[in-house]
């Protein structure tokens, strides 16, 4: 109740959106279901990528390299799954490669004090170089990703269809959002993470090992980008292509900012992106829009959203600034 009073706008808009979605569903259940499914499908890698950003940037490390993390993970996941014949191995290797890339970012920026933006851009370029050099066409997965129907939940009209008749990685994304939100705002780890991202010197004075915590957080945070990569090459499609992330890592960054560095809002923002995209593809059948305009819509939307959101959200105070013990901040 307390929460409802404080978040009238958020609660109100959720109700309005849900009612709207169900009215749409009542009018035409096929179109509505496929559109919302498409929206969530588009949103999954963005949500996961943005969660990597949330964990990193709440700890004070800007991560421009999400795109590269996702690309390497997509590559590693697909080819290890194809080589081992096991989807589980693929997913695990994908997540692991995300973590390894996160470790690289944190070591160079937190330990090595390299400029965080440059480190991220370098990760992206290196990821492109690595994956295009080692890419070999013609590999296939031994089996398709399973589709699970979650008992009971998948029976809910619309919501069940969209969220609970799902592949494993999409389910992972769905679960990760509230888990990260809870961890960030309700646990000791979360409080400490936010404090080293806001005011590392104060956190340091309070006895928190800022350097170590940033190293661990940025490294572990890579697991989400790794899952996003595995989603792209194994669940959304079954195949890897050069440069297949196509800017999704940057869309995730935009969503991270649009969502104000909060997992639940990030989730809503990603769904909004996904829905706009689904709407545009749907409209294409009704009015003639050139295909290229549909493709570039998410990018244009990102610019607009960032231009609107930039003044309204506040980044973690110390994001982007290296911490050197004893030098203050």
């Amino acid at each position: 109740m307390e929460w409802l009073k404080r978040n009238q706008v958020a609660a109100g808009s959720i109700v309005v959106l849900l009612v709207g979605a169900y009215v749409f569903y009542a009018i035409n259940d096929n179109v509505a279901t496929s559109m919302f499914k498409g929206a969530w499908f588009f949103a999954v890698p963005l949500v996961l990528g943005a969660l990597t950003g949330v964990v990193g940037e709440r700890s004070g490390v800007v991560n421009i390299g999400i795109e590269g993390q996702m690309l390497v993970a997509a590559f590693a996941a697909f080819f290890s799954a194809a080589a081992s014949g096991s989807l589980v191995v693929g997913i695990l290797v994908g997540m692991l490669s995300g973590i390894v890339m996160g470790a690289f970012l944190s070591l160079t920026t937190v330990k090595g004090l390299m400029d965080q933006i440059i480190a991220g851009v370098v990760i992206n370029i290196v990821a492109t170089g690595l994956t295009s050099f080692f890419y070999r066409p013609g590999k296939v997965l031994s089996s398709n990703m399973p589709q699970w129907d979650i008992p009971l939940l998948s029976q809910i009209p619309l919501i069940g269809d969209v969220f609970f008749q799902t592949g494993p990685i999409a389910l992972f994304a769905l679960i990760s959002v509230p888990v990260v939100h809870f961890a960030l705002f309700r646990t000791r780890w979360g409080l400490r993470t936010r404090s080293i991202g806001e005011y590392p010197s104060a956190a340091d004075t309070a006895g928190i090992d800022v350097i170590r915590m940033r190293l661990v957080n940025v490294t572990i945070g890579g697991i989400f980008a790794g899952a996003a990569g595995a989603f792209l090459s194994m669940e959304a499609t079954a195949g890897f292509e050069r440069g297949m992330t196509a800017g999704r890592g940057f869309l995730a960054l935009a969503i991270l900012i649009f969502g104000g560095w909060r997992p639940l809002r990030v989730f809503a923002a990603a769904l909004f992106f996904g829905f706009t995209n689904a709407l545009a593809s749907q409209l294409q059948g009704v009015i003639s829009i050139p295909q290229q305009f549909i493709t570039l819509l998410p990018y244009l939307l990102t610019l607009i959203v960032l231009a609107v959101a930039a003044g309204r959200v506040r980044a973690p105070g110390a994001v982007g600034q290296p911490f050197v013990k004893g030098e203050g901040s």
Partner: protein
Amino acid sequence: MADPRDEPSGADQGVVTTQPTTEATPPPVVPERGAPPPPTGVLGLLVREQSIIVPLVAVVAALLIGALLIRAQGVNPTYAYQTLFTYSFLTADGLQGTFEKMVPLILCGLAVVIPLRVGLFNIGAQGQLMAGAIAAAATAHAVREAPGVIIAVVAMVAGILFGAMWGSIAGALKATRGVHEVISTIMLNSIAAGLIDYLVNGPFKDPSSPYPASYSAPDASRFVPLGVVPIGLPIALVLAVLVAWMLRRTTLGFQFETIGRNRHAASYAGIKLSGMIVLAMAIAGGLAGLAGSVEYLEIDPYRYQDGIAGSLGFDGITIALLARSNPLGTIPAALLVGALRAGSSNLSFNTGLQPEIVDMLLAITLLLVSLPIIAKLIFRRHTAKSSALASSWGS
């Protein structure tokens, strides 16, 4: 909270004192506070020249790592490198190819260097180049009846203007709305690609072309190389020198540099931050746009078609970091990258290696040159702090 960029930094570029009283004077060189006394003799020379030595070491190390990768593919690395560089430097075709690649590479390198001096990281040279190229293609076709020189000049001016406009969008978003330039320029790259894909499939398509492409440049306007030297090369070289002069010797350059080192001080000194940010991005976009129009006028098939930009814009980032954001450094860096790019298909043909080996080599080079580790390993405590620092969300 003080920004880390505010601290006095390395001795290789000189440190700007934060009270720019006489605006046009070059930044005086002040030794870093608390730094060990500069060593003398051979070591001193090495330390002073580390902005040259570090990239050299990085390139050599990258080639060595690349040699391991090439060996892993079952090809003799010595033979591979010999094939690559012999073609790129010692054959007429190859040398011309290297020079032709150098032109857009230098310009895109400069398009990254200038914003870097202001503390902005321009990832959008790719999109700005494409915008310039399509503008050149459109205007050249529009004035196709004019004499060749006029067409070429009009196309180049259009390329510069359109590239500048494309770049300044990111600058304006940064200056007025605080949208981070890395995201906005990446988005603008994708938007440019989408819009142009529509244009060359629709309004601008040459019906006589079997694949989506613009009309070709009129014969009279095409750049004919002088021997192996394409006309674009002297243009790019002169611009590199001009940019170096602009950054070191003019008020504008001083203002850029001051903003890059400490934007609070710059603002306090009366420099209009937002105007300067837009201007820096516009100049960068103009240079990349020029690269696009030169590609259109100089490179067979003289059309805008898919892949005209290749990865030139992203190579510009590698070049700028290899050059340690020194405009003149873009020339040797572009020579190296150009040789790799020009020789890649010949290498692939002769050894069976994938042409992407070049992307890999460049990625390793970029990684090594941007990691502070190399400099630390060689120079220990005499390491100059990196002068290239971009800004984060907040600032």
